[in-house]
């Protein structure tokens, strides 16, 4: 009963498009993240749902009720702002109890609930303090407690962890997840950080230029990005350009710009001669030293590209290899552990399976 | 609902601006009256510039005096005020609030009282040393610097306190001398505060009556005092024309300053604290 439905919502700021024809369904109890680069319309979407902005077109439904014309006060929403926006003149308790008091809850009830919330965010001792006496992480938790204290049916969060440092951010992600699960309220979360989106969300909606590009589970977005933008934004990826040689059947063959020929899992029949963009994730690449020695043939059917190992970036649990194939094409490969046999400046061969390749026709927006 | 409230507020705002601006509009219109009569006619009868041509030269002289004193006190208050603010904010003296309160004190003294104070001060000084400050440019200037100094100290202290000293450290680390650093790093950053303070110093000086009133005389007088006496004792429609010219002058000055220094300065000028 407390899902959210956006129906072809458009909001402009004068000439600038905030969001355009945005249709999105958020299911009850779901943790959905709006993901996209800065300026893509995430905040606008959230503010439309909260009621701070009103769309020029379209409808917004919360829990099945059309709230498009309602002011924020009547939407029953909880919201966590990026820079917390705690009331500086009120104590932590007063901040958390604010929404309950506005709802006319009795004093005892407010006190009990505030106590509960402080326990929930694991800050039972700081109720009497002022926001300026708290650390960034504590302020963040209080902001969350304040937003959920009156049990709103919908929780909105706009880059709530953006101002925290990396370690604290990771700890808070775990906390957020725990709390959201404990309360079970529908949550719409905004971030431009893909890893954060992946670690928190049931589903992710990717926005670009005010439009919704794709909605799906993290796995769907990663495995089947609808276009190059999503593929690029969600995880690391190598792009290669080419033309279709043979597009009939489940596996197409594509001639790359540099003349190499590769085989690709085709989403459908392809017109021969069509230009396409193919992509392969770094972790799908396998790398062997000393190309063109024949080891890769041991795994038949792999695509192969030969190049020179340009740089090795060791990251502990994995290693990034930068392989120069041609003048303007470098592949990134992610391999497990340390690969002591690989040396920069020496020839290497990269290979990957056709079914690990993604393909989009050029000029095909969707 | 929100829009209705917004419009209600907008109506209040329009009414307030009408109140603030109406006197100037009305002045300008009545100054163009073609009537012979030595009283104000509004709406104007016929249109003519005759009262503009009839502005006595003595007014123009006092206008020049006012501008000169305004500019001089803005400059003097600017110099003294910037130095004082640097001393307060950067110096070792730890009771900074006390110093600031001291420099703010003239704001709390009723202007009339300041006028009387300076009158008596100059009177005594004349008796003791023979130095005549009454009815002199220097005398007026000293009094005006006194009433305008708090504005500069206030605005410059405010920007200095927000100033990020690491900017200066960066300059030192790049090999800049203290003076170069001050001139090329510190000054540009605090400049809006300095300009805002000086703008208000000029305004306070240029429009002042209650202090000047006690210090001027037939040989040296300021425009506001001249206008004041003319309104009190011998009204002449050409002061409508003169006032209109002063309004135009003020508007042009503000627009020019805004061009030169940016909007920011004007907003900040309001924030004296």
């Amino acid at each position, binding site marked *: 009963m407390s899902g959210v439905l956006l129906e072809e919502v458009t909001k402009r700021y004068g000439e600038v498009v905030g969001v355009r024809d945005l249709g999105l369904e958020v299911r009850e109890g779901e943790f959905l993240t709006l993901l996209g680069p800065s300026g893509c319309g995430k905040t606008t979407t959230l503010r439309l749902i*909260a*009621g701070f902005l009103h769309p020029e077109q379209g409808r917004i439904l919360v829990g099945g009720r059309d709230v498009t014309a309602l*002011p924020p*006060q009547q939407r029953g929403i909880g919201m966590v*702002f990026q820079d917390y926006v705690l*009331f500086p*003149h009120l*104590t932590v308790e*007063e901040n958390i109890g*604010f929404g309950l008091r506005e709802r006319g809850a009795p004093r005892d009830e407010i006190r009990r609930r*505030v106590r509960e919330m402080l326990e929930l965010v694991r800050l039972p001792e700081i*109720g009497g303090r002022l926001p300026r006496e708290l650390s960034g992480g504590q302020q963040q938790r209080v902001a969350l407690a304040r*937003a959920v204290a009156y049990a709103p049916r919908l929780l909105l969060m706009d880059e709530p962890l953006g101002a925290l440092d990396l370690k604290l951010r990771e700890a808070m992600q775990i906390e957020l997840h725990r709390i959201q699960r404990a309360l079970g309220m529908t949550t719409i979360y905004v971030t431009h950080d893909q890893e954060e989106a992946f670690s928190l969300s049931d589903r992710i909606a990717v926005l670009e230029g005010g439009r919704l590009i794709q909605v799906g589970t993290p796995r769907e977005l990663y495995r089947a990005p609808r276009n190059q933008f999503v593929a690029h934004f969600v995880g690391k990826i190598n792009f290669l350009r080419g033309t279709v040689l043979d597009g009939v059947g489940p596996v197409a063959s594509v001639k790359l710009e540099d003349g190499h020929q590769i085989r690709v899992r085709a989403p459908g029949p392809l017109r021969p001669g069509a230009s396409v963009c193919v992509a392969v994730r770094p972790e799908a690449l396998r790398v062997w030293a000393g190309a063109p020695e024949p080891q890769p043939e041991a795994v038949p059917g792999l695509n192969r590209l030969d190049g020179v190992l340009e740089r090795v970036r060791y990251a502990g649990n994995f290693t990034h290899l930068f392989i120069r194939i041609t003048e303007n094409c470098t592949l990134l490969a992610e391999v497990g552990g340390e690969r002591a046999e690989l040396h920069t400046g020496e020839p290497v061969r990269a290979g990957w399976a056709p079914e690990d390749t993604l393909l989009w026709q050029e000029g095909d927006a969707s | 609902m929100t829009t209705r409230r917004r419009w209600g*507020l907008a109506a*209040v*705002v329009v009414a*307030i*601006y009408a109140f*603030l601006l109406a*006197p*100037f509009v009305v002045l300008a219109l*009545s100054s163009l009256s073609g009537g012979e009569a030595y009283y*104000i006619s*509004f*709406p104007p009868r016929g249109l003519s510039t005759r009262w503009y041509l009839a502005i006595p030269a003595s007014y123009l002289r006092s206008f020049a005096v006012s501008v000169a004193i305004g500019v001089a006190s803005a400059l003097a208050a600017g110099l*003294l005020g910037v*130095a*004082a603010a640097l*001393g307060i904010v*950067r*110096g*070792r*003296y730890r009771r900074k609030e006390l110093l600031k309160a001291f420099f703010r004190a003239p704001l709390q*003294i*009723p*202007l*009339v*009282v300041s006028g*009387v104070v300076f009158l*008596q*001060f100059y009177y*005594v000084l004349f008796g003791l040393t023979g130095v005549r400050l009454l009815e002199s440019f220097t005398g007026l200037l000293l*009094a005006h*610097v006194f009433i305008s*100094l708090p504005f500069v100290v206030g605005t410059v202290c405010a920007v200095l306190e927000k100033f990020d000293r690491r900017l200066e450290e960066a300059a030192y680390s790049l090999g800049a001398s203290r003076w170069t650093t001050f001139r090329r790093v510190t000054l540009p950053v605090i400049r809006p505060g300095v300009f805002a303070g000086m703008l208000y110093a000029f305004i306070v000086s240029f*429009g*002042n009556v209650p202090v000047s009133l006690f210090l001027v005389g037939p040989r040296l007088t300021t*425009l*506001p005092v001249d*206008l004041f006496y003319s*309104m009190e004792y011998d009204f002449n429609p050409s002061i*409508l024309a003169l*006032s209109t010219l002063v*309004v135009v002058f003020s508007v042009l*000055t503000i627009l020019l300053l805004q061009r030169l220094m940016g*909007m920011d300065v*004007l907003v*900040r000028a*309001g*924030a004296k604290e």
Partner: protein
Amino acid sequence: MEPGHPAVAALPGRGPVKAGLASGWDSLLLPALGASLLLFLLPQALFVKNSLYAPLGFGRIGDELTLQNFGRVLTDSLFLYSFRLTAYLSFLVAVVAILLGFPLAYFIARSQSRWRSLLVTLLVVSSFITVVIKSLGLIVILGGSGPVNRVLVGAGLVERPLTLLNNQFGVVVGLLHYTFPLMALVLLSVVQTIPASLEEAAEVMGAPRRRVFTRILLPLCLPGVLAGGLMVFNMSMGAFTSAALLGGGRVPVLPILIQRKIISEVNYPMGATMSVLLLVAVVALNVLAVWLLGRFRRLSAGMRGTL
């Protein structure tokens, strides 16, 4: 304050280099401090002293210190009336300036930048123009045959033109016109420090506009608003020009009484006495207001934690 003072040298965390730099800043304080002492303390002292001599008429004064001036002024019913009147009018103007200035400042602070700069520029222009000219314009507007009365009579709202000048109403309007632009600018700088997102946070938690105002805006702006009100009060207490021109001599506020004593009656000691009393009253009221504000803050701090 002298360089190399042991207490300063012993300050923690200050190396000799920093102390050396700081002493340079210290000396910058001297010119302004000197000028202020010369232009502030010395004249004030002379002036207070003057109030302690008896006037002998024709500008001459006695040579014995006495408190008789204060006795005479404080029992003078005109002075006492004038004192009450000045304080009352100044208070009224401060209240009206707050009531009108706050919505205006709020509107400007929350409006788009294009409008904003125009509105602020107009405020600055208005504060730039001398009170004398403002008063002249107001005299035209409020006069018996001025536009306001023409409209009122023309619309049949009143039978005869209202007297809007040479009375307290005229003075209040004049003082308001004098102080309002500055007040609006001060309030603007206050409201600007309050992010709109604080209001949004309250709204989304269910607070109607009225409650957003009383629970968020008002408490956060209160110190600034009171400081602005105090500024208007101070300006009005010492305002001479608008009271003289729009009161037409029939609204004897203290600045006018003082000016008459000095310029028409050439009675310096009595003028000085009145000035001293005005000064003391204003300073005392300021100290009181600041103290009350401090207490209020501590009180609200003390109530914290009780919810």
